[in-house]
């Protein structure tokens, strides 16, 4: 029974397993495996969409039509149909949390027949199907049964999906247990795991040590040094890949002195020791050239200029800014050594310019509140975008007014307009051009220091296989693809 149990060391305990509210990685660990989505995408080429609960789809201006798969049932035995899709999307938009931002351009959802659903968007968007690859489908009966609070209480700790794994139990503080769904419509590999234990192991060092000691089969957020060491030790192999998350990007506060000075920001960007960062990732990283990584569909990255440490340029820029001996404060969310290290590098680079950087490590909420309320000049965070191919969602979170991650309060009207226009353009080449324009605006503003863009490395024990890195989501296991050897 041991071999058929898969133990996953997750970095935290879900606060909810409601797909409409799930926010963080360890919540998705559960929802992604219990529920299915209308479409899937190829992890190796995110622009390529794959059928899932929907077998066909097409866009016609503002209207998208999805044909649904036959014979799919929920874990409780009820059948999946178009009503479920409508109820799910309506509920999601009403709650307005979690991943709802990915589909917030939906105007209405119409059930055409049990196997066909029509979705109308506020404006034409080419990205809808791609973004729906992140939206989990619930059962309309469950929603109806708990309609008082939109099922918020119930879905928080219960689950009934159509997905490869069924929810068994949640032992608070310890683990969530799942079991394999034999009746799943999809295909399991040769020796799939019958039972999955999603353990909550908040301490990164403990995750690493447990993985190495064989207590866990896989772990997320293993500190890089440990991941490389474990992954190259005997009995393990390394799985490498790209993803959007976890590049330490330093956001500079556009409102608070001294970072409100563009020349000053330029000085910081130029002084930054990119090499140190790459070295800290033991060479498994490259230096970014702009907001959109090269492997992202339509990325203009290759055409962008390289960003390099240029101390002379930095000094010149600093001279232009007229801010000698400036002091600034940098907030870092606690628990991410790479982010902290990026700030340390900034500190030591800035020192060469005579600029003092004070680093303050705080819990995430406190750290982001600090910069947003102008108590801090900079903030270190990875990028976040759950959409595998829609850069506009990414831009709006990071660079548009009011975006959650736009912590330094960047604002540029041209960029705002560009981002609004992007989804309406169906020609990929044309979109690429606009994307470059948008990227250039961000680069030129020196709003961000892209410190390094590391590869994601995950040590996988040789006794198991099937793990792949999701480019849009940081280290999450698709349990249905995993198998024991």
């Amino acid at each position, binding site marked *: *029974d*041991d071999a058929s*149990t898969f*133990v996953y060391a997750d970095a*935290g*305990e879900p*606060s*909810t397993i409601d797909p409409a*509210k799930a*926010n963080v990685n360890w919540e998705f660990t559960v929802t992604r495996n219990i529920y299915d989505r209308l479409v899937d995408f190829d992890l190796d080429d995110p622009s390529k969409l794959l059928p899932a609960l929907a077998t066909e789809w097409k866009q016609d201006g503002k209207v998208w039509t999805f044909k649904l798969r036959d014979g799919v049932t929920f874990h409780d035995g009820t059948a999946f149909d178009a009503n479920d899709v409508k109820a799910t999307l309506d509920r999601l938009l009403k709650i*307005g*949390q*979690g*991943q*709802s*931002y990915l589909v917030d351009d939906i105007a209405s959802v119409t059930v055409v027949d049990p196997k066909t659903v029509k979705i109308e968007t506020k404006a034409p968007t080419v990205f809808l199907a791609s973004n729906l690859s992140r939206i989990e489908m619930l059962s309309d009966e469950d929603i109806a049964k708990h309609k008082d609070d939109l099922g918020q209480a119930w879905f*928080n700790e219960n689950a009934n999906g159509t997905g490869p794994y069924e929810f068994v139990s949640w032992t*608070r*503080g*310890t*683990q969530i247990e799942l079991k394999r769904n034999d009746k799943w419509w999809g295909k399991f590999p040769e020796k799939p795991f019958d039972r999955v*234990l999603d*353990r*909550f*192991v*908040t*301490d990164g*060092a*403990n995750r690493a*040590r*447990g993985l*190495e*000691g064989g*207590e*866990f089969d896989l772990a997320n957020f293993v500190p890089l040094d440990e991941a490389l060491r474990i992954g190259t030790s005997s009995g393990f192999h390394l799985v490498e890949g790209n993803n959007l998350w976890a590049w330490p990007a330093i956001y500079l506060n556009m409102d608070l002195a001294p970072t409100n000075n563009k020349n000053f920001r330029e000085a910081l960007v130029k002084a930054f020791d990119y090499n140190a960062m790459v070295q800290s990732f033991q060479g498994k990283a490259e230096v970014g050239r702009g907001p959109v990584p090269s492997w992202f569909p339509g990325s203009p990255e290759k055409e962008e200029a390289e960003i390099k440490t240029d101390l002379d340029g930095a000094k010149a820029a600093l001279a232009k800014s007229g801010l000698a001996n400036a002091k600034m404060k940098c907030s870092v969310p*606690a*628990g991410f050594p790479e982010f902290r290290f990026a700030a340390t590098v900034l500190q030591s680079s800035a020192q060469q310019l005579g600029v003092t950087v004070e680093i303050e490590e705080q*819990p*995430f*909420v*406190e750290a*982001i*509140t*600090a910069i947003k*309320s102008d*108590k801090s000049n900079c903030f270190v965070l990875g990028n*976040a975008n759950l959409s595998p191919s829609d850069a506009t969602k990414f831009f709006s*979170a990071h660079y548009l007014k*009011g975006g*959650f*991650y736009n912590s330094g309060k960047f604002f540029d009207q041209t960029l705002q307009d560009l981002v609004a226009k992007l989804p309406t353009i169906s020609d990929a080449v044309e979109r690429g051009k606009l994307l470059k324009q948008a990227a250039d605006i961000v680069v030129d503003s020196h709003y961000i220091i892209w410190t390094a863009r590391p590869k994601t490395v995950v040590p996988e024990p040789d006794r198991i296989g099937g793990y792949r890195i999701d480019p849009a989501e940081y280290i999450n296991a698709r349990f249905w693809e995993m198998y024991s050897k």
Partner: protein
Amino acid sequence: MIAFLLKRLVWGLVVLIAVAVITFFLSRVVPADPAAFLAGQNASEETVQRIRVEHGLDRPLPEQFASYMIGLAKGDLGESIRTRRSVSTDLKQYLPATLELLIVSFVLYLAVSFSLAVLAARRPGGAVDGAIRLITMVGTGIPVFWLGMTLQFFFFYKLHWLPLGARFPIRETAPPVVSGFLLVDSLLAGSLSAFLASLKHLTLPAATIVVNLLAVGTRLSRAALIQEQSRLYVRTARGKGLSPNRILFKHILRNALSPILTATTMQFGYMISWVILVEVIFDWPGIGLYAYQSFQVFDYSPVIALAIVSTAGFVIINLVMDLLYPVIDPRVQSVGS
């Protein structure tokens, strides 16, 4: 007696209210927004605001305080934003784990520190005493968190003798929850192997807590025993021709109990503090870890609840100790100060 008990209970209540008031206001001074956490990273400002209203976070502080205190009086410890459950429900879940750890550590501490102190006090200034003194002194200086990590490193990572953390082997099924104490529940379920497994998981966290307590406790107990040894009644006992062992065990020990008890009460306070660190390091699913994780996202209620619960524990321990003094020492009429 009754009056004394009543007085102590009222005082305990005052302490509890004070801790509730202090932690409430302290926690609200923090410049962080738990609603933003709850809403999620991509939520709109309206959503965040809606959540603030739902949780009463938009109301003025005195009003929040009033409703918190009213809830508290009814035994309602508020709601955890992080777990989206009522704190009381969570506590019911996490408290047994902590209590199990505390009780096991405490019993272990008492047994070992007492034996060591006796051993040391048999020959003050002797080699055994010297060794124990040195060990306890070093023990007091060991940072608990560091010790925990070091023990993990050796006993799990290097030697593979003991588990890394948690309360029970991951792949095995824990016995059904009756008391919440795994040691008890596994026995109730009639499973010796489960009992041993839980004991194994308890070993490192308990050892971590105990080493530090032990150091301080043994020092104090030893000092108490040695001080008692210079009392005149010991001379009398020797004059009666009693053997050193009899003098130590029949005369000195009983007299040294009161100071040892005082030290023990103090130790309990430390233990409650250390338990947070130990739970964090050993992924021990108790209230320490619960509160720490909540604290990380500025989820206030669990933190206040931890303060209240641990203070209540402390108050109760103090009360029990106060009641024990007269039993141990007939000179103490139960008139605590």
